[in-house]
C-alpha cells in the first residue's frame, strides 16, 4: 500500500514546471491528502521549501537518492 494519495513525476524538468504541476495537482486533491513528487532539478529542494512555506501546505519530507529528489507534501486544511 502506498503512503501517498497522488504522485507527480517531474524528472528531467526545470523550475518552474515541477512547482507548477504540483500546484495543479494539489488543487485537485482533498485537504489532508498527500502528494509525492519526484524531481531531478537540484533547485527544486529550495523551490519546494519556499512553495510550502508560502502556500501553507506541509512539506512532510524531502530527500535525495542518486540524483533524484523526492518530496512529500500534505495539502493544507
Amino acid at each position, binding site marked *: 500500500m502506498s503512503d501517498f494519495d497522488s504522485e507527480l513525476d517531474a524528472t528531467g*524538468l*526545470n*523550475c*518552474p*514546471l515541477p*512547482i*507548477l504541476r504540483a*500546484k*495543479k495537482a494539489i488543487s485537485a486533491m482533498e485537504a489532508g491528502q498527500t502528494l509525492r513528487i519526484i524531481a531531478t532539478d537540484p*533547485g527544486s529542494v*529550495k*523551490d519546494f521549501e*519556499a*512553495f510550502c512555506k*508560502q*502556500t501553507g501546505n506541509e512539506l512532510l519530507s524531502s530527500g535525495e537518492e542518486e540524483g533524484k529528489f523526492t518530496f512529500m507534501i500534505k495539502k493544507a486544511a
Partner: protein
Amino acid sequence: MSVRLPGPERRDSILKAAQRLFSEKGYHGVSIDEIARKVDVSPAILYRHFKSKQMLYDAVLQAMSAQRESYVQTIINSGTSFEDVLTGMTQVYIKSISDNPDLLRIELQSLLDKNPAASDFFKNRWKSFTDYIEFSLNERLPYDTPNREVTILTAALMFQGMLREVLLQKHLQPQDRLEDVSLHELSQELVRLFLRSVGIEKSHLSRRAVING
C-alpha cells in the same frame, strides 16, 4: 601597499573582480595575474583562495547560480495559464539580468569560449523557458498540427532568441530607436507576439492585473 582583508572578504573581492573581468574579456582573455592586480594582491595570495583559473571561473558561476532566479513566486502569485506563467517568468528573468548584466556578458563570452561548465550553466538557465514552452505547447497544440515536434522545438528556440536579443539591445547595445521603449514594454510585447505566433491570444492580462491588484 595592499590592505589586509579577512579571508572571506578577500575571497569575495576576488570573485567580484573576476566576474567583472571574465564578463569583459572572456575566460581566455583574462589571466590570474590581471585579476590579482585588480584586487591588489599577489598571485600567490589569489592561488591560496582558488587553485586555478578554472576553479575561480567555476566559483564565479557558482556565486551567480546562488542568485538564480526563482519562479516559485510567479507560480504562487499568478494564474497557472500559459500566458500568465510565461509573462511572469519573463519578468523575473529580465530583472535578474538588469540586476547583474555581467550574467549576459559572461553568457555571450562563454558561447565562444566553449567552456563546458559555463555552457552547462547557461543552458540550464534557458532550459527553464524551453522546458516550460515545450511542455505547454505539447499539451495545447492539436495532434494533427503539421510538423508538430519541430514546431514545438522551434517555438521554444524562438522565444529564447527573442528574449536574449531584447536584453542584448537594452543592456549591451543601446540604440536610439529603442530609447523611448522601456525594457518592460519590449518584453510585454515580445510575449504577446510570441503567443500570437503559436496561436494563443493573450486575453487575460487586464483581468489578471485586477486580480493581483
